[in-house]
């Protein structure tokens, strides 16, 4: 399954949530790319280099180049260590014109999305993965793959949709073993990398001891029932076309079965 994910060039979006973290999947893909001989560049914004490299063997680590945006991304320490172009400059600097195939892992796109305008990020990602539209810049010769980790709760539908439209992958159910190998399991296919469990929809009326459904005759009878306080057509016509001498307001009352209309004045016997 990893091979199928890595076979396509372009942008691969890994969407995760708080309960199901996606960094392990990102690291699994990074490990697979590195072991197949590619150079892997990691733009690390969310975890330190030590934490990202943890769990990788030395042959993977030797092919992994970590670009640190974690320690001082906004240049608060003013030591000059931060990238001169800020986060956007650091992302753009990942653009490579080398001849070999490379994989760029962005950890995470959410961090960049919170600090950069969505349009600029999308444009830069598109250039990174497809290598055109920058004037005067040579397109990359080798295949470029961009893996982006995205925390889906942090963003609205707009940015998520924009990034999704840039990506093109499918996913399958999987589990990640401790040494970052992937264990493929049978399961449904979905349109995004979304390792979240789906609760099957259950019809609550199936196993009841009483009947909640209506038969055809019952449904017809229900539809034909006039409600006691319904605005009937007679009332409606009378109001719409007031007859002569009906300038004052009238009360239209339709007594039902239980009404007891007594025309006598109940206060007649009062001696006021």
């Amino acid at each position, binding site marked *: 399954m990893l091979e199928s994910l890595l076979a396509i060039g372009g942008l691969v979006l890994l969407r995760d949530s*708080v*309960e*199901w*973290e996606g*960094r*392990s999947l990102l690291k699994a893909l990074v490990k697979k790319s590195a072991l197949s001989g590619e150079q892997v560049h990691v733009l690390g914004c*969310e975890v*330190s280099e*030590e*934490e990202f490299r*943890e*769990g990788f063997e030395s042959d993977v680590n030797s092919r992994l180049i970590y670009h640190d945006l*974690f*320690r*001082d*991304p*906004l240049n*608060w320490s003013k030591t000059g260590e931060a990238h001169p172009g800020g986060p956007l400059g650091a992302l753009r600097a990942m653009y490579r014109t080398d001849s070999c195939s490379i994989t760029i892992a962005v950890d995470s796109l*959410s961090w960049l999305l*919170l*600090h950069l305008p969505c349009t600029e990020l999308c444009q830069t990602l598109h250039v990174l993965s497809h290598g055109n539209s920058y004037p005067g810049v040579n397109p990359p010769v080798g295949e470029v793959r961009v893996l982006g980790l995205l*925390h889906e*709760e*942090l963003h609205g539908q707009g940015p998520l949709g924009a990034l999704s439209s840039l990506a093109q992958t499918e996913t399958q159910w999987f589990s*990640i*073993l*401790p*040494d*970052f190998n992937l264990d493929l399991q049978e399961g449904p296919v979905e349109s995004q990398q979304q390792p979240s469990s789906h609760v099957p929809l259950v019809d609550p009326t199936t196993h009841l001891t009483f009947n909640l459904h209506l038969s055809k005759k019952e449904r017809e009878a229900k539809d034909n029932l006039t409600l006691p306080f319904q605005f009937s057509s007679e009332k409606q016509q009378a109001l719409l076309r007031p007859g002569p001498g009906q300038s004052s307001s009238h009360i239209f009352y339709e007594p039902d079965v239980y009404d007891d209309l007594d025309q006598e004045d109940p206060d007649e016997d009062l001696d006021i």
Partner: protein
Amino acid sequence: MCPRHPRHLPIFTHPGRSVSELGMFPELNNLLNTSPDRAEQGKLTLLCDSKTDGSFLVHHFLSFYLKANCKVCFVALLQSFSHYNTVGQKLGVNLTTARERGQLVILEGLKSSADIFFHPQEEPHPLRFLRETSAESLQPLYEFVREALKPVDSEDTTWRFPVLLVDDLSVLLSLGLGAVAVLDFAHYCRATVCSELQGNMVALVHDSEDAEDGENELLLNGLSHQSHLILQAEGLATGFCKDVHGQLKILWRKSTGRRDRSLIYQYKIQDKNVSFFAKGMSPAVL
């Protein structure tokens, strides 16, 4: 008798006499499988509360790390020093002593925010954003934290590892900062305290019941993704109960290779202790 108190009012408790040597809440230590002498380092713990008051978790971690002989920087924005000291004494720690011997550095938000407006300041104040018309960043507050926790060679006692405790981050949103500014502050604190100094960071965020509060949601979710351990205190869905004050959900994240683990317990807050039990197993109903 510990009264139930609404979230935003100061808590009035009786100063009790100093309790056991253990301090903190020993049952919570058991649930988290930790103790002051074998606490893990380099971790961010997120505390959040929803429909209840989660400040008992703040008091727990404050006394826990002081007992563990760590140097603690406490950004106390919600309550006064004397309040934390009073509750701390019930849990077996004396904040005044800790402050005097240099183990505890505390930034009292309530007091120092008044200082910004009414007393002249020479050097930049950590809460300087309160005076700025468009508050953009919490860099001065981060500088304060870094200064407080950086290792000093001249100190006589060596503390085990530094700890940053924040009560709480949601207050910063109420004071006009954006969620991204608060997330950046948390990011830099994590980079310095957890990564560089191999210390721990504990922060409380309120989970507002208001679904329209996008900024708080962003702050809570953003921090959740960065945390190693999340403790969520929730009020019971059915409302107030005398014997069960709430439910605590414990979520361990980022354990490489293993699935994230979560546990749910119910709890009752007593005067000097919090007792935990499995759902439905409160002693009152058994």
